[in-house]
């Protein structure tokens, strides 16, 4: 990478660290450290909410998904605006008005200590691991692209994040999120502009080419429980998922508990309702345009440079033969693509498009052969889609913009990890240490313990990220386990708003919800995970109300 790009990346990292340390000076107590004394403006909280949700996976993986699969994934977010509106009139006033530190603390006031402890424990378990996987995703890609050891990549992203989160608390996290969100949007918009300027065909023709390969399909109205991304799974399943994430996950709840008032907390959530779908469409459109760009500029046969090097070293002649066929077909495909806008009439344009599609199918076949070869040589899944955008950014973008995009990927990773570390520390200290171990200690003691807890979770995340490859199956188990209880925890919070619900109903309803989702996961594995949240939440509410009704009858 060009030195100017490195200067931009290093400058960004230094600025985030210095700003975070500067903000530590204003944090004198636990409420300031975890909740900024409930003093933050709605727009800063709103940007922090968005930055927390938008991780490096979005910048690398979702853009790559746009290149290979098109715009369909945007349907996943169709339930988000509705969820934000529902939360604005239900859970947000409950949680903000209760003056709690954590969402789970509220459950003890409403139900009992065991329900609070179980939900907080489930949060620590899943988010502790997910902080590591969020860090691992960009670190693995950076290692492959820049040829660094994985520990370097983990340290480059992880250490600055842990330092500013530990010292500055939620103030540092939120104000860093604001700047990081601006950087991310600037990087994405700049890439779209550069792509459109450098495209050899007009935007209209570029979108026609994308559309001919199915990448401009946004809506799928089929009602198929086995299909992950449809309009209905997005609107119904997505609404429940977003209600769970934004309403019950401490990493998000803590963002809006820092707002000055209930009204400002609502407004901060509605910022995501405004902008999430357009932003996600922009992210996917970057991928779609990169796909079209590579119709006119030869792409690498394998995007993952580490796998490419491994295959060349072990099966060189075989790979070279594939590359030869790939280049030959690429030339034919490019010629056909260029004929599409130059065609004299509709019939000629259609003939050029048909020829283009035939060559495109051959290119995909050759790429599949290369991916199979790479998997055979390396013994690991290629995940080539995650390397499309990094390779494009480093080889095709102008000097300076590459640096901005790499800094934006780091910003996306850091903003998500920082929010998770901050919330993991809050739940550890408030829901367990202060509740069960040292309830009588003074504020200064809790502030010290909170900083130590942040450091502990930061080191834990770096450890998980470093060993993510070897811990692969364990992480999958934890993630799958996490999907069992996400909707079920939402069900507990829904119960909390029903006046007739009781503690026993909430606790055993939660266990029943998790059990039913586990049964569905293993018994009917083809049902899309988006529906698991609906099943879990409904089960908890039904079981909780039945048990609550019996308890009232016995009393």
């Amino acid at each position, binding site marked *: 990478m060009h030195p100017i790009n490195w200067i931009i990346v290093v400058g960004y990292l230094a600025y985030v660290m210095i700003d975070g340390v500067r903000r530590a000076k204003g944090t004198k107590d636990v409420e300031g450290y975890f909740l900024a004394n409930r003093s933050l403006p*709605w727009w800063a909280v709103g940007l922090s909410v968005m930055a927390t949700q938008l991780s490096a996976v979005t910048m690398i993986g979702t853009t790559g998904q746009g290149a290979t699969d098109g715009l369909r994934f945007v349907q996943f977010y169709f339930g988000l*605006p509705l969820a934000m509106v529902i939360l604005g009139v239900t859970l947000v006033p409950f949680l903000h008005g209760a003056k709690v530190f954590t969402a789970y603390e509220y459950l003890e006031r409403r139900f009992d200590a065991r329900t609070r402890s179980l939900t907080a424990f489930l949060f620590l378990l899943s988010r502790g691991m997910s902080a590591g996987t969020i860090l691992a995703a960009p670190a693995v890609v950076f290692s492959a692209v820049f040829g660094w050891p994985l520990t370097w990549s983990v340290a480059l992203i992880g250490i600055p994040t842990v330092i500013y989160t530990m010292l500055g608390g939620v103030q540092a996290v939120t104000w860093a999120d604001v700047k990081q969100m601006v950087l991310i949007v600037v990087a994405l918009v700049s890439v779209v502009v550069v792509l459109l300027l450098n495209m050899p065909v007009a935007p209209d023709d570029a979108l026609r080419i*994308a*559309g001919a390969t*199915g990448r*401009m399909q946004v809506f799928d109205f089929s009602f198929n429980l086995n299909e992950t991304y449809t309009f209905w799974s997005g609107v119904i399943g997505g609404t429940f998922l977003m209600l769970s994430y934004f309403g019950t996950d401490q990493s998000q709840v803590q963002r809006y508990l820092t707002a000055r008032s209930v*009204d400002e907390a609502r407004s901060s959530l509605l910022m995501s*309702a405004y902008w999430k779908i*357009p932003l996600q469409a922009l992210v996917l459109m970057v991928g779609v345009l990169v796909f079209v760009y590579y119709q006119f500029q030869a792409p690498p046969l394998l995007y993952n440079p580490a796998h490419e090097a491994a295959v060349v070293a072990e099966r060189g002649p075989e790979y070279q033969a594939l590359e030869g066929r790939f280049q030959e077909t690429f030339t034919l495909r490019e010629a056909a693509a260029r004929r599409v806008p130059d065609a004299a009439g509709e019939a000629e344009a259609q003939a050029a498009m048909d020829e283009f599609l035939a060559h495109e199918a051959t290119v995909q076949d050759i790429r599949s052969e290369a991916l199979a070869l790479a998997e055979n040589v390396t013994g690991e899944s290629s995940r080539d889609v995650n390397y499309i955008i990094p390779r494009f950014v480093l080889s095709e973008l102008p000097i300076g913009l590459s640096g901005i995009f790499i800094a934006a990927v780091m910003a996306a990773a850091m903003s998500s990890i920082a929010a998770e570390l901050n919330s993991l520390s809050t739940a550890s200290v408030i829901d367990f240490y202060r509740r069960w171990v040292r309830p009588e200690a003074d504020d200064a003691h809790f502030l010290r313990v909170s900083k130590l807890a942040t450091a502990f979770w930061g080191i834990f995340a770096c450890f998980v990220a470093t060993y993510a490859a070897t811990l692969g199956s364990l992480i999958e188990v934890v993630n799958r386990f996490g999907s069992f209880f996400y909707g079920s925890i939402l069900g507990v919070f829904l119960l909390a708003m029903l006046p007739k619900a009781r503690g026993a109903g909430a606790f055993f309803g939660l266990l029943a919800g998790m059990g039913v989702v586990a049964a569905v996961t293993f018994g009917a594995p083809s049902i899309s995970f988006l529906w698991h949240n609906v099943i879990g939440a409904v089960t908890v509410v039904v079981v909780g109300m039945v048990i609550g009704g019996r308890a009232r009858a016995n009393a």
Partner: protein
Amino acid sequence: MPSDPPSSTARSRPSFRTTLTRVLAVQAATLILLWILQSLYHV
């Protein structure tokens, strides 16, 4: 004595109902735009 004009902070922050209306309008516009894109280019 005339009452104080509303503060700039109060004026800059719209009410929840206004924001909600705007959210629905923005979503409708976004979905229509995506629908038009699909209709024009998806084969």
